[in-house]
């Protein structure tokens, strides 16, 4: 039986800092890089190679991201730096290495992710078709393009550096074919094999991000070919269930209380999925949806298409049980008949 997911975020930052100062800390041992391409499928292997390139090379780069925000284009320019096997983003505020990720919190660090690549994620080929062809140079480097398609329509176009495999560009398209996000390296310097090994930051023993056993009675398959990859403790009693279809991912967070609409940050827009009111945010990461149903608050973060989002919101809102098991069951059962 899966326990209901409960979030207790109050005082998290303070608690984390106090614990960082007083509790035992552990340092993550530097593990062997997961640079080897492990997937047999060529497309999956290409992503494995891109991940390995970040770990195996050092570089300084500037990434420009454009995204669609309710009919208005937005963009941001972000610095990235890979050194000693670790990737630093946003001036070093975010650090990643070998599938693990940390976020600077005050004078210390907290964990965002603590496990490497999910081997249980479905293959890209299971849901999509992929076309390969040479692409235009990006930051003066020849690229190889993967056009990932579904129903003869490109949903994502990815450009890889021919020499190193580093991902240099990524375009995402909505169900209608309209572009929703574009990422490009606009500067890349110092690309060379790495010299040293990362010294991972020390975090508290109870830092979030650890993987939990997937509940036995959780149905694994979601609408649109999404597979339940894992369950994680976000922090405290919070749990994240993460689904993947091989290209896109869906994280669903739920809290056992109705939503405080008035406390939501500005910048969102109310949309309706059927008769469900949903607050929608569009940002560089993708789409954030939050809504309430049956005295529960749901938050879905995903880069999946609007068609898949609609199916998820509809299914979760139909759940009429306070237990997460029932929520998952309602999500999956309607699409298990096919």
């Amino acid at each position, binding site marked *: 039986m899966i326990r209901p997911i409960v*979030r207790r975020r109050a005082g998290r930052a303070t608690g984390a800092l106090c614990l960082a100062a007083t509790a035992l800390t552990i340092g993550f041992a530097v593990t062997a890089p997961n640079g080897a391409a492990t997937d047999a499928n060529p497309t999956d292997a290409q992503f494995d190679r891109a991940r390995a390139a970040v770990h195996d090379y050092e570089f300084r780069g500037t990434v420009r991201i454009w995204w669609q925000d309710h009919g208005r284009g937005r963009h941001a320019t972000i610095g990235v730096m890979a050194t000693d096997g670790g990737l630093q983003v*946003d001036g070093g505020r975010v650090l990643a290495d070998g599938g693990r990720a940390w976020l600077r919190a005050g004078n210390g660090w907290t964990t965002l992710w603590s496990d490497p690549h999910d081997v249980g994620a479905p293959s890209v080929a299971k849901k999509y078709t992929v076309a390969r062809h040479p692409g235009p140079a990006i930051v003066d480097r020849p690229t190889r393009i993967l056009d990932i398609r579904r129903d003869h329509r490109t949903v994502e176009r990815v450009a890889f550096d021919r020499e190193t495999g580093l991902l240099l560009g*990524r375009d995402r398209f909505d169900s209608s074919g309209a572009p929703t996000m574009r990422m490009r390296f606009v500067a890349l310097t110092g690309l060379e094999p790495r010299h040293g090994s990362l010294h991972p930051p020390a975090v508290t023993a109870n830092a979030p991000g650890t993987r939990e056993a997937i509940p036995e009675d959780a149905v694994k398959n979601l609408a649109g070919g999404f597979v339940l990859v894992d369950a994680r403790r976000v922090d405290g009693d919070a749990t994240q269930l993460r689904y993947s279809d091989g290209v896109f*991912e869906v*994280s669903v967070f739920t809290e056992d*209380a109705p939503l405080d609409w008035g406390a939501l940050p500005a910048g969102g827009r109310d949309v309706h999925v059927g008769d469900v009111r949903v607050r929608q945010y569009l940002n*560089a990461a993708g789409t954030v949806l939050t809504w309430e149903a049956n005295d529960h608050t749901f*938050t879905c*973060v995903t880069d999946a298409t609007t068609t898949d989002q609609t199916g998820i919101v509809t299914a979760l809102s139909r759940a009429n049980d306070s237990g997460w098991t029932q929520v998952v069951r309602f999500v999956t059962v309607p699409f298990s008949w096919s």
Partner: protein
Amino acid sequence: MNEPNDTTDPIADDARLSAWLDGELDPSEQGEMDALIAGDLAWSRARDEIASVRDLVRALPDVEPPTGFLESLVAVDDAAPVTDFPVTDLDAVRHRRARRSTGVMAALAVAAALLIAVIVPGVTRTRPALATDVRVHQAGVAASGDPVSGLAPLGAAMRLGR
């Protein structure tokens, strides 16, 4: 000859006897009272007592009130104007009572609210930490896909609060 009865309550009939003595009864009542006095010793004794008191009172000399007595009564009235007497404003009393009632009702309402708050669990609404959700999600994307495109969006302002 029959002995007269002795049964009449003299107190109850003092007024009738006094009126009989003053000749104020009508002829039928006069005749009835004559018969009672003649046939009842109690009535006869009562008549004699009332008659003797009347005679004593009428024999007293006239008494004049002390000099200045009436004037003093008038002077007391003049020295104590009406406004100096305690006055009760009925409107004010009604308003005070109304305010008192309102206060009592308000206190009861507060008490009831406190009682409900203690007994009935309140509905606590939640504020999801959207920014944290996005960071965690993107870290997963970076771990299972490409680290640069997964984490770079976290460098852009999300404006999602926590």
